[in-house]
């Protein structure tokens, strides 16, 4: 039986600026099982990124309950949340968010350095190289991120997300800054990862890529609905 990795119950997010309230998320109920490949689509401004941020503990919900691996995370301290992110979550952003000043190797190694478990430098080197080879960049260890193409940078980001062996990958518009060929390559990598058992939660507004996911959700005005395919499977 599959474990639920993410359990959300009645999660809402309200932004308040100058007395104007934006209900970015309204009472979201969502369960992501281990090994699931989930895509979330929806028009711009519907709350996709907000949902992903809350999932990734980068933001706190206004109300609702949220568990990761069965552990409630509603009242975690700043550092406890960081620790949990480090252990359980791998992020892949639209704008890659690599650190320009350090090498590709160091970028990928970063989660291991922040990890609680001390990792020997040989083990670290082995793991980092392994992950970079997985995304086809084993030969670019010593480059600086800005010496790589966009597609290559996103692959570095994927390697970084994988390196600490997280429970779930949270992916926000991974192809948004890429041409279609690079985009396809990234999507192929994600497919492979899921095939190997990785849990993936991906936000995209590209219908072509959304359909690669096994479960497709649609977010509209802060509310989730299951897509046609999912409904069929559910029946």
């Amino acid at each position: 039986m599959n474990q639920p990795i993410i359990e959300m119950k009645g999660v809402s997010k309200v932004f308040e600026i100058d007395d104007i309230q934006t209900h970015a998320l309204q009472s979201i109920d969502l369960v992501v099982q281990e090994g699931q490949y989930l895509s979330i689509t929806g028009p711009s401004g519907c709350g996709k990124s907000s949902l992903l941020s809350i999932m990734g503990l980068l933001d706190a919900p206004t109300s609702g309950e949220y568990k990761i691996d069965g552990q409630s995370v509603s009242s975690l301290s700043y550092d406890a949340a960081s620790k949990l992110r480090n252990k359980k979550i791998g992020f892949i952003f639209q704008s890659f968010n690599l650190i320009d000043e350090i090498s590709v190797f160091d970028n990928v190694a970063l989660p291991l350095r922040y990890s609680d478990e001390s990792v020997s430098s040989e083990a670290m080197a082995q793991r980092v190289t392994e992950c970079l080879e997985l995304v086809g960049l084993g030969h670019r260890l010593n480059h600086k991120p800005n010496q790589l193409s966009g597609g290559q940078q996103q692959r570095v980001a994927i390697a970084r997300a994988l390196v600490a062996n997280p429970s779930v990958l949270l992916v926000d518009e991974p192809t948004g800054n890429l041409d279609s060929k690079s985009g396809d390559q990234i999507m192929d990598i994600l497919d492979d990862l899921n095939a190997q058992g990785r849990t993936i939660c991906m936000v995209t507004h590209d219908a072509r890529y959304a359909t690669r996911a096994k479960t497709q959700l649609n977010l509209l005005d802060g509310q989730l609905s299951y897509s046609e395919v999912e409904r069929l499977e559910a029946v």
Partner: protein
Amino acid sequence: MNMFRYLLRVAWQGLSNRLGYAFSVISTMSFTLGVLFCTTSLFYFLVVQPLPYDEPERLYKVEKVQIDKTGQPNVKAYGYASLIHFYENQDSFSTTGIAHYDDDVIVSHPSQPLVGMTYITPDFFTTLGTEAHLGRLFDETEKLNAYSPNAMLSYDTWTNLFNSDADIVGKTVLISGKSYTIVGVVSDSFVEPELYEVGRKTGVWLPWDFNPTPENRRTRWGDRDNPRVFIGKLKTSVTPEQATQAVTALVGRTFQEKVAAIPFYNGWSVEMELNSFRDVILGDSQLTAYLLMACALSMLLIATANISNLFLSRAFESKKEFAIAAAVGANMKQIRSGIFAEILLLLSVATALGLLFGYVGSELIKTYLHDVLPINNLGGLNWIAVVIALPVLLGLSWVLALISANVIDYGQLQASLLSSGKGTKAQVPKSVRNTLIAVQTLFVSMLVFVNTSFSLSAVNAINDSEVINTDNMIGLSLTLDRQKPITREEARAWFTQVEAELKAMPQVERVSRSMSPVSSTFGTWSLVDEASLQTVLPEAKIVDEEYFNLFGQALLQGSMFTRAQATDYERLLIINDVLAERLYPNGDAVGNRLSFDLNREASTFTIAGVVKGVKMPGAISIPPRVYRVSKGGYDFVIKFKEGHSVSRSTIKGMLNNISSRLVIYELEDLEEQKFNKLKNQYITGVMSISLTLISIALAALGLYGIISYGIQLRRSEIGVRVSIGASRKAIVIQMMRDSLVAAVVGVMVGFVLIFVFKNEFNEHVQGVIHNYWYLLGAVTALCIFIIALLSILKPLRGFFKQQPIALLRQSDN
């Protein structure tokens, strides 16, 4: 015009997103401007402004330097007869005047105030070009040897002590048993030249003839007292060098005739010295003014570093905005105008604040330093200074702005825009960031080091255990109302009774009938050791048998004076250990004899004991000293029991019971006298330390600005690290490590520089650098560590208060 307003609005918005940056720039600039305004104003008053006299550049104070047999200058003093002879016979000056400075009590005034009395010849005022406010100035009536008992009041005395009495002319004042008729009040605009002592003001001007030199000394040619001043206005046909030669010949001739025959002066000679009024009045202060100016300029240097660092960082940060502006068609000029609008905004605020600081600072200087600076017409903030200082700093900042604007390669702007989709946001390159931090640290480390050594040396000077102990002591000087004659015996009996009554007071621990060593000066005696024939010139003081016990000077050899020795006025000396060491390095000093003139038994003294030497406040070393025993005169030093004291009115009552003719001449806390002695040191110390503190604050501000700004710019990077799972501690350590490497380099370079200049600098701080090298280094390093830590924690705290997602958002804020 519209464009201009638009630019200013954009600049305003940009700055409100960068309050830390705006704060750093504005505080640095306004601080520096304020200090620059103050120092240039002070500089103007001390160095540039002409002295307020007729043809001030031709005015000289002429001094007679007595040169001892070894060729060393000994004292600067006129013998009474020699001064009169010089005054009557010189022909290098067109007008001259002589003055004798003293203090005395106006006995006829209900409050019996002690005021400065200056005894002058009438041409003293003519030479300066003085005018009268009321009545007349001294004239032929008061000329030398006319003995006309007339007086003039200073404007302050007239207003403060005589309520600006319009009918003052013709009234009389009683001073030292003599009644003087007031003939005039000196003009309000007259600025008394401080020729004799800084801060001394004359309250009453009296004719030269009545100066307190006793008759028997008026015929003396050699004299070592020096309350006498000669001033003259040089003839236009004579150069100062010619005048020096002529007057040296004139005075030298009479010196050889009248003085050289006295055994003491065997082999001595004189040299006359012409000192311009500017040098006499402003001498040390001019030096201070230059010193302050140097401090201010070094501050300017630091400010320049701060500002250029900040501008540079800002320019790098704005690179992306410029790229976008360029992409939508802005040309170079428009982009530059944007930069300048922002800088203009900053500079205007800074200038306004700087003027405010300068004004307040100048007023403070005027209020608090009025008594210490030798000029009586300090004018506060000087607009000429403002007009000079303002363009300097503004121009400088403008140049810096230009440079930082040009650092950006506009050709690459478009390219950077195209590639801006990838990677994190535009950042100040690490190398630039680190260089800026290193330069700032260099400044801070040098300043902290230098300032700490100044403070340390000041603390050392104040806590010097060798300085004379004056706890719980007062000095009391009496004088007599001599309207009716008083016999010597009568007066002596009164003083003896005063001593007895003081000792009988329950609050009093000890009484010595001696002058306070803090307020009075020591004499210089020329003594020959009978055995070795070695001549020494120790400082000398006449004391009674209680003196050493009172001041806690321990006896090292021999015995203390006794009451009987004092009463009999025996020819006994006690010398201090410094003199003993010099004269009798490996023997017993006691029993040896020192003499003014070995041929005369009456001039020969026996050494009774050796005491531990004490330092006078402000002195660097302890000079050799001799003390002669006496039973004392008009002066008392009283030590109270711990926690007790006696009021002036109690003492006055006690005196009155003995005789109504006993008048308090001076009653002063010795601690206060000590402070007065140290006043100049304190003021220069405080001034330079506060200036250095301000520069440290500035440099620290700069370091803070550059580090915290650097962190601000790493906002999104920090966001990435947090999202990957970095703890707050890990982030702090990372930022600390990044900044500290550069900071350590800066500190190292600073220490190397300090080390290179160590020896020159060490002299100015009494060697504290040699003794406290490690402490100073540790303090400096600690300061920098703390500043760096604060600069890192401040922005990080702001970051950690928000949810991590806020750091990752594209916008800068």
